[in-house]
């Protein structure tokens, strides 16, 4: 789950990483009198927010009110602005880049840093970027701060300020089960204080049981997706017309791929998981139906999930939700024949292989 800037900065504060004085508002009436000038920052989960006009400045209460009103009624890179972070303006002397993420290759946390902060890190040349892999069994050690401070050309008091910032960022990364913690820019201001100018934080959804305080709706999900998530379904809305229910993430992805290659557009991704329970099937249908697809496609390879159970679930869902949209089913694996018989008896088309099922869908949509 990706967090908004203001949420990431709350975590930074908790781990003693300096952030600018500021506060978050949801509406203009929440604005407080504050030391001017201030930055008015749209809380949207999008890169290049500044270039897209998502960050404004205000020198007075009137300006602040006006900029806030405008931003709160606008979209930044297609995303509606729902909240603002009002922050004291910093006098920037230098901008650095600092992040910790997971390195899949070394299977360990990796610290990434650059003297070229404030811009897209992907556009910074390789020799301006330094990486340090941290051994998870050893953890953080101070020499890492020294190596990093040297690369970032920090000495004296700046080095003294920087060392705990990096070790605290590591503690935050491990302590909050993060997948990414990025500070871009890490600002050195004109009075030589180091402050986190921005935050980009991703938390491991699988570790949320250790962070009960963080259990919130994922800002990047639709309301329907969040609701499905609370029922433990992985459900993602997409732009097309074919509602999809499949079992296993890999098979579900392969289903979407096959549909797309046939010029059929999926309306959603829904992984039924491994279950042998009719009610779970009904619940899956309830989410897909609320996304209003034109046709429903169920693609099951039975194993843990028995094909006849799914067939019964489809039949009962059809009745329960009074489904008028056509349903195409592919059932394979454990109890597939029983399953297909149940469906046929109830007037639902059922195939034993994926290709035939998709051909049928293509015929129905007239793309073949």
């Amino acid at each position, binding site marked *: 789950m990706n967090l908004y800037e203001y949420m990431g900065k709350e975590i930074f504060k908790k781990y003693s990483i300096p952030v600018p004085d500021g506060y978050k508002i949801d509406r203009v009436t929440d604005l407080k009198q504050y030391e001017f000038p201030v930055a008015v920052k749209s809380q949207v989960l999008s890169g290049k927010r500044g270039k897209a006009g998502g960050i404004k400045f205000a020198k007075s209460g009137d300006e602040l009110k006006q900029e806030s009103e405008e931003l709160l009624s606008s979209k930044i890179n297609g995303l509606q602005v729902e909240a603002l972070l009002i922050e004291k303006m910093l006098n920037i002397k230098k901008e650095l880049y600092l992040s910790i993420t*997971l390195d*899949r*290759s070394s*299977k*360990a*946390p990796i610290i990434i840093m650059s003297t070229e902060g404030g811009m897209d890190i*992907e556009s910074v040349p390789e020799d301006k970027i330094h990486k340090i892999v941290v*051994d*998870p*069994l050893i953890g953080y050690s101070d020499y890492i701060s020294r190596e990093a401070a040297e690369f970032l050309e920090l000495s004296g008091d700046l080095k003294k300020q920087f060392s705990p910032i990096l070790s605290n960022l590591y503690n935050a990364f*491990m302590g909050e*089960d993060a*997948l990414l913690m990025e500070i871009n820019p890490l600002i050195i201001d004109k009075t030589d204080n180091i402050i986190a100018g921005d935050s980009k934080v991703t938390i*491991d*959804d*699988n*570790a949320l*049981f*250790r962070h009960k305080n963080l259990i919130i709706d994922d800002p990047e999900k639709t309301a329907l997706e969040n609701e499905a998530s609370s029922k433990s379904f*992985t459900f*993602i809305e*997409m732009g097309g017309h074919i509602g999809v229910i*499949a*079992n*296993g*993430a*890999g*098979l*579900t*992805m*392969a289903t*979407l*791929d*096959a*549909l*797309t*290659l046939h010029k059929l557009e*999926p309306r959603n*991704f829904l*992984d039924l998981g491994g279950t042998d329970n009719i009610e779970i099937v009904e619940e899956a249908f309830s989410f897909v139906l609320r996304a209003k697809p034109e046709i429903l496609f169920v693609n099951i*390879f*039975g*194993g*843990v999930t028995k094909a006849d159970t799914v067939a019964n679930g489809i039949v009962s869902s059809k009745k329960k939700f009074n489904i008028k949209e056509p349903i195409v089913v592919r059932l*394979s*694996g*454990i109890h597939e024949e029983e399953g297909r018989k149940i469906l046929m008896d109830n007037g639902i088309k059922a195939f034993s*292989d*994926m*290709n035939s099922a998709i051909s049928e869908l293509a015929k129905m949509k007239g793309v073949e």
Partner: protein
Amino acid sequence: MVVVNGNTKVIVQGMTGHQGAFHSGEMIKFGTKVIAGVSPGKSGTKVHGVDIYETVYDTLDMHPDASMISVPAPFIKDAAMEAIDNGIKLIYILTEHVPVQDTMEIVAEARRKNVFMIGPNSPGITVPGECKIGIMPNHIFRKGDIAIASRSGTLTYEIVKAVTDAGFGESTVIGLGGDPIIGTTFSDVIKIYNEDPATKKIILVGEIGGSEEEKAAAYIKEHVKKPVVGYITGRSAPPGKKMGHAGAIIEKGTGTADSKIKAFESAGIKVADYPDDIPKMLK
């Protein structure tokens, strides 16, 4: 035959759980030597006639070779460390939704103790005619000379079944697991398959995210003479959106379906568009 064989003695951590009990039974039917179960608080009971113990330590005089771990995600780190520290040399983690930082520590410890680790979030390993550790359906396999490695679960069964239905058979099938950090990866497994005399042809079932498919392709280009067929899923995934597997996040620049397909093709690997196309490409 790879890593396990007909003599491999397997314990199941979490054997009394719903999943553990069901799949242990299937493994026994397959012919796997399931010698003991471990379920804290359930010692003295039996599952499918197999004794349940309190700890892995209590099973050591039976000399277990491998452990299948099927406990809830919050307890995976403890169970895996228990198996490793008690000297088990192969651990397979079925469970999904394991926190990635826990996996990271398990992998580091497994490497240090020379433990072969499969998963987490994996359907396991199957060597037809010898041993199955995991949850792949028994009836889809036939002993043969095709080795399969996959990051997916049900999709693997789909492909195994297609291969078997087309008249081929499998030497070894390993489900690597769908998480961003896993014990055994494509680049580990491709070396093993390449050196396995029972394997004549190889199928790699990859997925968007990470760069393991690209690394395996580089190794294949250099070292592998056996024919390899590839399939990559996630082509139609919206950028930056997750598809159930955390491993399916599209990473900036690398890790896309395109980059993986290109890497495969430049290594001379035939790439299938649909799972069903794979068998004909083996001919």
